[in-house]
Structures are given as C-alpha cells and as structure tokens.
C-alpha cells in the first residue's frame, strides 16, 4: 500500500515499519507473560492477537508488496477456515486441533522459504547464507507439517495410537536428518541443481512421518509440545530467510515456550526427550509386564449402589481423571456427581497428573468445559500429600499415572515416573472398561490391591449410574 503514500513519507517508511514491528514484538512478549496466570491469560491472548494484527497491517505498507489480490484471497480463505475450525470443533477434540494448527504454521514457514527461492529469477542471485536458511526453513517447516498431521491422525484414531516401529527405524531417522543437513550444504554450494531442492523437501516431509509414527499415544503430550516448538523455530528460520526481525523474535519465543513445555512433560514422566523420541514406548506387544502368575490375582468389583453409599458418606473425595475421561466424554457427568457430593457436604477435589491425556493440560481444558472451576483442580505436588486423608479416590480413565510399579518395581518401563499416590487413600475406585493394560503396556498392581474396587464399564455410563444411585442414598 506504499504506492498510495507521498514520496516524503516513503523515505522514512522502512524505519517506521521496523519500529512498529518492535511494538508488535512487545505485545507478544507481554501477551505470553500474561498467559502465565489464569486471571490474566485471556487478556494475554488478546494482546498477542493485537500484536499479530499490527505485524500484518504494517507489513502491507512494505514497499516490496505491489499486488494485493492474492493476499486478500489467501487471508479470506485461511481466516474463514481457521475461524470455523476454532468455533466448531468440540473441546474433546482439542489435541487434534492444536496439532492441525501447528501443522499449518510449520507448512506456511516452509512455503515462505520455498516461495522466496522461487521469486528469484536466477538462483545464483541468492547468497550462501540465504541458501542455508532457506534449506533449514524448508527442512524444519516440512517436518513440522507432516509430523503434526501424523500426530493428528494418531489422536483421531486414523493411525494406530500404538508405537509403530521396526528395527533400525531410529537409525534411518537420524541418518536422514544428517543427510538433509548435508544436502542443504551441497545445495548451497551448487544452487543450480534443483534436484537437490526436491530431495531436501521430500526427505524432510518423510522425516516428519517416520519420526512421529513410532511414538506411542501416551507420549503425545511431549510430541505435541515439541512440534509446537518446531513451528516456532520454523517461523524464526523464515525470518532469517527474509531478514525480518519480527519473525525471528516471535518464532524464537514460541520455540522456547514449546521447549519448556516439552521439558515439563518429560520430567513428569521421568524420561529424557531422547528416550521419548527414540524409545518407541507403549507398543501393543508388551504382554502384562513382568507380572507373576495370573491365577493369584483377583479384583473386587463394585456397583453403582455400593459406590454411591461409599462416596455419599465420605468426608473427602478426590477425582483422578485420565485420557479415558476424554474418550468417554464424561467431563459433564463428573461435574454433576461432584456437585451432588458437595451438596451433601463432601469435600471434592481433582488430582491432575501433568501428562494425563494427550496434550499438556488436556484434563484442565476438558474439565473447564464442564464448568469445573480451575481452583479445585490440583496438580500432582499439591494433591499427593492429601491422599492420606482422603476417603475415596475415583480414578476415571487413568491408568499409568496411578501405577504403583513406578515406585516399587525397578524393572518396569515406567519406574521412576512420578505418580499420583492414590494408594495412600483409604479406598480407590477404578473406572475402567476392562482389565486391559494402559498405553505403557504394563499391568497395574493397583487394580488388585486390597483397598481397590473396580467399577467396570464405560466411564460416562458408570458415572450416570452412580449419579442415579446417589439420589436414593
């Protein structure tokens, strides 16, 4: 839009653009800061979106931009799709949606770098730094794109949530990554060789697929936050390509934020990032872990009526939600049961493990949708000291995060993972469809503990039955 401005303005326009980019950056930083606290988070998101608007509007005045048809078409189409997705998608599908948005972000960065390459009449006009940054941007952007869509497929159930792997896959993945880096260097030296570009693009897309496919469902929170980090780094790389500070800074902020979340998730599982990426944890082949003979294990079953009496006369009940709650879409009925109990004077709290569900904070979003106030949701460190004084723990769709083998059995794959100490409560009730193993593929001794009772069935139906039974108590 710079062509509409008088020449006197044009001389200082580039500086104004840069200064306003700085303002946009400040909005992003302030916005992220406010996203750290529940009271201010909504304002933080608002500030960040204002920063984005500033960045976009200011860029339209960039003298490099001469035509607007494609821009208008693109923003309208993309904006509409984004808005519809954001409005229509159910809260239970949030992990999938985050994965999809992430994929589009990464894909956009790769396309920007590719487009920048294609804009030059002769490729030799780009200097070697330009070529390297274009290569890296295409690499990271493409693998974020395909990786996110594989994660989406796994979350949606199109692709098996189990770890799909074969011997040597890790070596192939690591080898391909090195190969792409070497190819980028070769391409920089010899930019006329367009075949190299296609190979870089193709292999990068493929790495996104092969590096996410072997990761099991329970590790999805790590994968999602790592891909989030990648999409930031991809944006930053695109910034290097264009020499645009706004992109470099914003991308770096997102990259760092994603890495921190990834780290929190890894810590919550007591595993290193390398172990998550290359460990292929959670295969379906693992058969019942190291457990002994099946014959000596028996579980105690409970019924809705029996359970209703137990919880109605308890003084403190803790609800431990897991992925099964999301699958059964039981968040609303949980809230009803809790409200019912609170009316009777029972103290109800929720204990949420950091990696419960399929993305960081999954359970919190789910329960928020059901109007559960966030201050009755306790994280692991807060709730663990309280189990000893808890009468009944309702474990709904959670398994590995309450598995005592993480504390007692050094040979177990989840050994060392911090868990919710539900076994310290007077009684635990496990809502579960069957006795099958969790995503980690290991048996859970909690089910057979003397203090535990199983309530078999779909979580939603079981809770509805409990709610009905509570009326008669």
């Amino acid at each position, binding site marked *: 839009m710079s062509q509409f401005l008088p020449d006197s303005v044009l001389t200082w326009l580039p500086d104004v653009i840069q200064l306003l980019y700085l303002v946009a950056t400040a909005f992003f930083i302030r916005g992220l800061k406010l996203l750290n606290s529940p009271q201010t988070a909504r304002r933080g*998101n608002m500030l960040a979106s204002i920063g984005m608007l500033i960045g976009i509007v200011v860029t339209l005045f960039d003298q490099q931009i001469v035509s607007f048809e494609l821009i208008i078409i*693109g923003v309208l189409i993309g904006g509409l799709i984004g808005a519809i997705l954001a409005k229509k998608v159910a809260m239970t599908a949030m992990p999938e949606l985050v994965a999809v948005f992430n994929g589009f972000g990464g894909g956009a960065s790769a396309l920007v770098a590719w487009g920048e390459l294609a804009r030059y009449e002769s490729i030799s006009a780009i200097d070697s730094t330009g070529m390297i940054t274009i290569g890296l941007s295409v690499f990271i952007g493409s693998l974020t794109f395909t990786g996110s869509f594989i994660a989406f497929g796994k979350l949606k159930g199109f692709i098996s949530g189990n770890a799909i792997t074969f011997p040597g896959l890790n070596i192939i993945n690591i080898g391909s990554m090195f190969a792409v880096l070497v190819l980028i260097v070769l391409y920089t030296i010899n930019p006329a060789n367009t075949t190299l570009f296609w190979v870089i693009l193709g292999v990068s897309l493929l790495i996104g697929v092969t590096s996410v496919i072997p990761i099991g469902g329970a590790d999805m929170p790590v994968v999602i936050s790592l891909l989030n980090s990648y999409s930031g780094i991809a944006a930053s790389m695109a910034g290097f390509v264009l020499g645009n500070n706004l992109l470099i800074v914003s991308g770096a*902020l997102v990259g760092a934020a994603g890495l921190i979340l990834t780290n929190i998730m890894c810590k919550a599982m007591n595993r290193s990032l390398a172990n998550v990426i290359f460990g292929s944890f959670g295969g379906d082949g693992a058969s019942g872990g190291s457990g002994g003979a099946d014959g000596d294990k028996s579980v105690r079953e409970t019924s809705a009526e029996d359970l209703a009496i137990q919880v109605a006369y308890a003084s403190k009940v803790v609800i431990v939600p897991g992925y099964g709650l999301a699958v059964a879409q039981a968040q609303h009925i949980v809230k009803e049961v809790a409200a019912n109990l609170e009316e009777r004077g029972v103290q109800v709290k929720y204990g949420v493990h950091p990696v419960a569900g399929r993305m960081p904070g999954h359970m919190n979003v789910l329960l928020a949708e059901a109007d559960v106030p966030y201050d009755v949701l306790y994280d692991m460190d807060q709730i663990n000291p309280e189990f000893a004084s808890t009468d009944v723990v309702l474990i709904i769709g959670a398994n590995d995060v309450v598995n005592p083998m993480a504390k007692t059995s050094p040979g177990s794959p989840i050994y060392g993972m911090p868990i919710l100490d539900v076994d310290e409560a007077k009684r635990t009730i496990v809502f579960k469809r069957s006795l099958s193993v969790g995503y980690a593929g290991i048996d859970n001794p909690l089910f057979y503990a003397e203090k535990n009772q199983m309530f078999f069935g779909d979580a939603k139906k079981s809770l509805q039955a409990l709610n009905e039974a509570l009326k008669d108590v």
Partner: protein
Amino acid sequence: MSALIFSLFIFVLACFIGFELISKVPPTLHTPLMSGANAISGITIVGALIVAGGVGGDLGKYLGLAAIIFASINVVGGFMVTDRMLEMFKKKEDDK
C-alpha cells in the same frame, strides 16, 4: 555476513526471553499457552504476505498464496480457539 550475525544475536536473546517468560506456568494453562504460542508462530504470515504480494514469478506468488492460507488458518484459528478455551476457565464462585 554481519547481517546474519546480527540476526543470530536477536534470535538467541529472544530464546532466552522465551525461556524466562514461560518458566513457571501452572498446568491449568498448559494447553492455552501452547495454542496461544502456536498462534504467534503464525507470524510467518508476514513473510507470506511479502512473498505473495511482491515482484517475482508465478510459482513464487502461488507458493506465497498457499503460505498465506496456511498461516491465516494458524493465526485466526489459534487465537480464537485459545480465547474460547480461556473463556471457560473460571474461578470457583463464592456464592456457596
């Protein structure tokens, strides 16, 4: 080369700011933080605008168009869904 060094400086400093900013986020906000940050990564739309609207061959323009569509989905959808989530987060009312 000096331009690249300058950019690297900015990149590294911004990474440190990012680490400081997000260091102690409560678990309640993990998802909104992630999707909000994700929307910010859609800033790549700024690059897409320059590629799609700038001078250059047709291929570049259409790649730019695709980038704008992708990035717009990311930006608009990301901010809106984050807002939708945060709207649901409520504190316990004191009416009881």
